């Protein structure tokens, strides 16, 4: 059973769990009752997680200090995995991958081809949704790492829906034959995998060299959708040329811009209060002047009125009008002040990931005339 392909209730020994420490610190761990998960704030024995429902908060008292620390333990999803996976290459993030999957109409009926596998970020999202994913990677260590990871995540197996193949798709194409280095287990009389893809995703530097090879593995009797993911506009230009030459149509290139917002509060500071504060400052300044003048006068006149002035000081301090908490450290949202809810865009946005070039193809535009006649006749006879 894979934590990626089924909804699980409770955490069990051996599960892959994502530990959420903070928004940009999510750590995958394999639950092992002899292990301890260490953070800056304290140590969490895995034992504490076992048997708890997924989504549980785990809280501990930190040693020495009497504070407490906590983490959340989540069941992995492809989207959380993308935020926590070990990077072996550049990866595709959710704003791009989710758009591509929607535009190519991915569903359990989809048979998808993806090259190269890279860090497997997109592979996990595809694997969750499509009927079968054929992923290709030509870099040997990366292929092996991905294969190991996919196995561990329960994505590659006899009854599972991912096949990964070690292959330079630009040179040698996409066909998977008995004897190739692949996760596919060939049956006794099976010589080649019937890929029949209706969705293709190319995230490699020279998609134009891979496109001609697609003819061997795409489905012929239905519409096939393709997306090339390239950072440079020159790559797009070359890709368009080859797509046109190989009979792909409805070409369109787009860019996706994703943004995240923090929800924050800004203090409501009115003009009236600002004026009132100035008025207050001015009044107190005048009072101060008068006081000083009186003190001077009394000194000059040699009338000892000292105890009166001592009394006056603290009173004026206390009535100081300070509607915005100036000088004090005010926490955002402090209930003694008024606040306006605001959004703050993340400090650094991904302003360019890649260009997405889409194209479509219906290879065999034919129909079975006899079948149509049969349907019409049978409906007439009814």
């Amino acid at each position, binding site marked *: 059973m894979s934590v990626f392909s089924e909804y699980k209730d409770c955490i069990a020994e051996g599960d892959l769990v994502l530990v959420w420490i903070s928004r940009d610190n999510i750590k995958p761990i394999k639950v092992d009752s002899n292990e301890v998960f260490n953070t800056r704030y304290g140590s969490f024995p895995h034992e504490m997680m076992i048997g708890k429902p997924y989504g549980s908060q785990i809280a501990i008292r930190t040693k020495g200090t009497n504070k407490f620390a906590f983490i959340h333990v989540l069941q992995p999803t492809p989207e959380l995995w993308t935020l926590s996976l070990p990077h072996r290459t550049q990866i595709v993030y959710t704003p791009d991958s989710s758009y591509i999957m929607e535009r190519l109409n991915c569903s359990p009926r989809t048979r998808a081809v993806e090259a190269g596998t890279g860090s497997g970020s997109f592979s996990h999202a595809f694997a969750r949704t499509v009927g079968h994913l054929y992923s290709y990677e030509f870099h040997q260590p990366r292929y092996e790492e991905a294969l190991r990871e996919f196995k561990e995540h329960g994505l590659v197996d006899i009854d599972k829906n991912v096949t990964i193949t070690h292959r330079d798709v630009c040179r040698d194409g996409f066909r998977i034959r008995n004897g190739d280095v692949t996760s596919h287990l060939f049956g006794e009389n099976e010589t080649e995998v019937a890929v029949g893809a209706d969705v293709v995703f190319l995230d490699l530097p020279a998609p134009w060299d891979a496109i001609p090879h697609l003819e061997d593995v795409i489905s012929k009797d239905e519409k096939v959708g393709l997306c090339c993911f390239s950072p440079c506009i020159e790559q797009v230009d070359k890709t368009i040329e080859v797509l046109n030459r190989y009979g792909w149509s409805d070409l369109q290139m787009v860019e996706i811009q994703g943004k*995240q917002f923090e929800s924050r509060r800004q203090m409501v500071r009115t003009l009236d209060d600002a004026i009132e504060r100035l008025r207050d400052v001015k009044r107190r300044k005048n009072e101060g002047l008068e006081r000083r003048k009186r003190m001077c006068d009394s000194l000059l006149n040699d009338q000892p009125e000292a105890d009166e002035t001592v009394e006056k000081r603290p009173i004026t301090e206390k009535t100081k009008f300070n509607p915005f908490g100036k000088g004090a450290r005010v926490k955002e949202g402090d209930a003694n002040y008024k606040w306006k809810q605001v959004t703050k865009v993340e400090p650094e946005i991904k302003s360019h990931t890649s260009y997405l070039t889409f194209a479509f193809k219906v290879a065999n535009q034919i129909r079975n005339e006899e079948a149509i006649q049969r349907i019409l006749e049978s*409906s007439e006879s009814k």
Partner: protein
Amino acid sequence: MDPLKQLAFDQHVILRLPSGNRKIVQLKPNSSISLGKFGAFHVNDIVGYPLGTTFEIYYDGTHEPDLKNQNRIPVGKIRLLSRTENETGEREQSPLPAELANVLSSANNQKLVNLGNDVQGLSMAQIEDLKNQTASGEEIIAKMIENHGSFDKKTVYSQEKYLKRKKQKFSKFFTAEYLSSSAMLQFLLEKGDVQRVMDMSQESLGMLLNLANIRSNGTYLCVDETGGLLVYFLLERMFGGASEAGATAIGGGTIVVVHENEHPNLDLLKFSNYPESFLKDHIKTVSLLDFFEPPSSQQVEAAFTPLPKDQVRSLKAGKKNAYYRRLKWYNNQRQIITLANETEYDALVIASTLHLPQLVQRLSTRVHGSRPVVCYSQYKETLLELAHALYDDLRFLAPTILETRCRPYQTVRGKLHPLMTMHGGGGYLLWAHRVIPAAEPAI
């Protein structure tokens, strides 16, 4: 024939016209479909070809005029617009459209004088004649180029532009596409139903589906104020269509729709190609009142007890009907109890204009730990209020407001640039995870 791959009888499909407009039609056997100025065709002529095929309507002069109704668009014949031949064959040698391959052009348009319609040697009447007599759009356009006084003075760029404009005007081709959820959204947006679909965009919906981890075999709690569009997106992602009438899905999965009116509004699903029985199996609807104030089991059991089968059989006709009506009520009440009190949901997905903090916080009590809560809104401000409310509620982890926008480009070699205008909407998403707070640990 597989209705998910080929055009099938009685299926709803979406037609793309040369003008860029779209039209949803049903492919009724032996009927014809009119596309206005782009002509009309017989449904039987296109059924069986793959979804996504482009057809051309042409008139060879043999069609019979409709004597009763002169204004009726005559039904033409169908042939394939074989793009592949065009684009692989002729384009290989020349990057230009085939129509321009054999005409002269100018390096710049310095010599081009704007004479309006006078440069066109064909009169309006002659063009009308051409349209009636024969002629595919391509033939008309070829004639117009031939008779154009200063076509050779135009640059290649403006020749291409001219061609594109005329193609949109005279071509009688259309593409018959699968009616996906995205295609339905596109159709509604272009039709001007922006408010009805809450200004959603394909990219926002795509992101919602992924963030909510929608897939087959899930049980999802959903509020949909778009008349079923959001539910259709979920259905398509979970099942990818039902391949034959009544056919069972690849996997299981249920969408529980909570609605604010007495009856749910999922009208748009009538265009989907899922059989009624399929929708009934996979979509359950409960009103907000029933969801939050379900009847008690005791009440329901006290009001009605199902009879053994043989006893039912022996009931008289009138009584039998009454019995079945009450049995239906009973099953429905039991279902409400299950959905409201027992089911733990695998995601909460919302597109609603109800006040979100209350709605999301109350519905989330039924969401399983670690599962996503995703809320779509046309406005960032309503999600902001929600984010603050969820931030203070320990049952929600890291509420985040997200925006995603797709920027389309003119996709022509050597002339790549972002389109000059695009749809401005698309809304926003809030994403959080349902979590289970721990008690403060003992010392």
